[in-house]
């Protein structure tokens, strides 16, 4: 498991990549990824290399959404595998996040 982040050249978008399992052990790194530096306008969580996420990962996504402005947050979850899509679908997170 590892979390890396990358800011777009204009600094407006922060992309967070999660490799491996996205669960409670990722907590510190995930928070660190969006709390360091200035706030971005848009957030992208790239789950291309994430093969599993549990309910505490869903909780962390809610923390990110809160950090990014709650109801007005612009957070996208991209490159979700079918398993990850299924977990997000059960929790109906598509109502909170753009999933693509």
């Amino acid at each position: 498991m590892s979390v890396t982040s990358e800011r777009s050249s204009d600094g407006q978008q922060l992309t967070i990549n999660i490799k491996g399992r996205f669960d409670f052990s990722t907590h510190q790194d995930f928070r660190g990824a969006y709390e360091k530096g200035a706030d971005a306008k848009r957030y992208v969580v790239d789950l291309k290399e994430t093969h599993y996420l549990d309910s505490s990962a869903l909780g962390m996504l809610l923390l990110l959404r809160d950090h990014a402005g709650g109801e007005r947050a612009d957070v996208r979850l991209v490159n979700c595998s079918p398993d990850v899509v299924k977990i997000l679908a059960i929790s109906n997170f598509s109502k909170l996040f753009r999933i693509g």
Partner: protein
Amino acid sequence: MRGAAPPERLKILIADDNASDRMLLSAIISRQGHEVLSACDGAEAVALFERSRPQLILMDAMMPVMDGFEAARRIKELAGEALVPIIFLTSLTEGEGLARCLDAGGDDFVAKPYNQVVLAAKINAMNRLRLLQETVLQQRDLIARHHKYLLNEQRVAKAVFDQVAHSGCLSAPNIRYLQSPYALFNGDLLLAAWAPSGNMHVLLGDFTGHGLPAAVGAMPLAEVFYGMTAKGYGLPETLREMNAKLKRILPVDMFCCAALICVNFKQQLVEIWNGGLPDGYLLHSDDRPHTPLVSAHLPLGVLSAGSFDDNTQVYPFGAGDRVFLLSDGVVDSTDESGEMFGSRRLQNVFVANRNPALLIEEVQWALARFRGQARDDVSMVEIGFTEPESLGPPSVIYTDSGDSSPLDWAASFEFRASTLRRFNPLPYLLQLLQEVHGLRLQSSELYIVLSELYSNALEHGVLGLDSALKRDADGFALYYQQRGERLDSLEDGFIRFNFQIIPQGQGGRLIVDVQDSGGGFNAEQVLALPPAVDQLSGRGLSLVRQLSHQCQWSSDGRTARVEFAWEGLA
């Protein structure tokens, strides 16, 4: 000793039968800053060890009375878990002899004649090991102590929580469930309670995370569930309150996946809301394939009150039908290769199931076969349909004396469109009527009659829905779909309640008029029909007639009047 920390002052026991060797070694060790104890044979060494507990021992192998090997064995035994390093002093050079020193419990050896630097280094190395062992033991004991505290705290928390959780009706004959005794600390929650209407509410919840954090939300959730169910609130109001409460008290990253169901035995309906739990299933008594009860909502505690969606699904539910709910942990159990159990395997268990009483066990077996081991952190519940007569009536306890019971009054209420859209007035009305002590013994009947009249007035009167739609399963679904749509877009209409409490001798009478803004119905014609027993519709009116003392409809079918009477209280 260059670069190393100054050596700790240790209490070192020297056992050697050769007096000159012993004195020489004592001198060296003392010069290195340690305290020295001396013994001239093995037996004396053991006795000194018992009395003075030296931290390290330098032991000659060959001694009279008791040799070093035997002394080492005894000292190691006396030392127990603590590491008391024993360094053998030996002129032995052949491998076998040296090995024997270690076999007897020795930790190292130094050869005579002594090299002071090597000796000091060995003592330091052994002391490091000794300290390491000491730290490990301390930490182990600390962890064991914490673990014991934790278990005790969990036991107390669980005992308190059980008082709350078991105030419900999980033991009702139509409920079967599987839950680990410590499910609370896995964040799983299972609650069941009777509503005053005779409906049964069941909640299966799964909080994010594990341990105490997962358990803290359970208590407020249970209180809202029991409190509102007992007061006669329906699922939407209860869900809104549970969501608002959790949203208010839980941190952002915590929430509760939950399914809430309401079984209406009298009308043979089941109403369900699923937010974030894996698909539940409605298992039919006939050969129809089971109906998945899919999560259509976000979990409780995520959305603000304004965006929360309390829409429920309603299905016909009769003898032999069952609702099966489960927490995650069943379908997402993985085997050694990482493959998930999945919903297909679960459904195969449903299909293969012959004896409904064994369904939960069969799911467990399938899970155990799949993983090669059982797991005890999953929750499953199955709610069946048992005819209401065989279920225990809800027990209600009152604490006041009744001296101030109001006995002569009338009140009217009019609920208009925007109120009817979102608000369920029945709990308030019932609570008002509960102030009349003579009515309390009939509160269940009263509630059922009022809710029947209310839903008739709302669904057939204000919303103009045709109950004939409900004659088959498709029409049934359509009926509830239309109900939701029309209610959401309701602009006009009203339902009026008029209550009169009239004292009569020692007792009294309650007269209730329920009027709606709808087109009315041909009361004479409808009431003349034989009560429909096996149909999905038409149970409401016969229920009202059975339970109230008198009931009649105005000729235009827009106003119903029911009457309840009571005798004087002893």
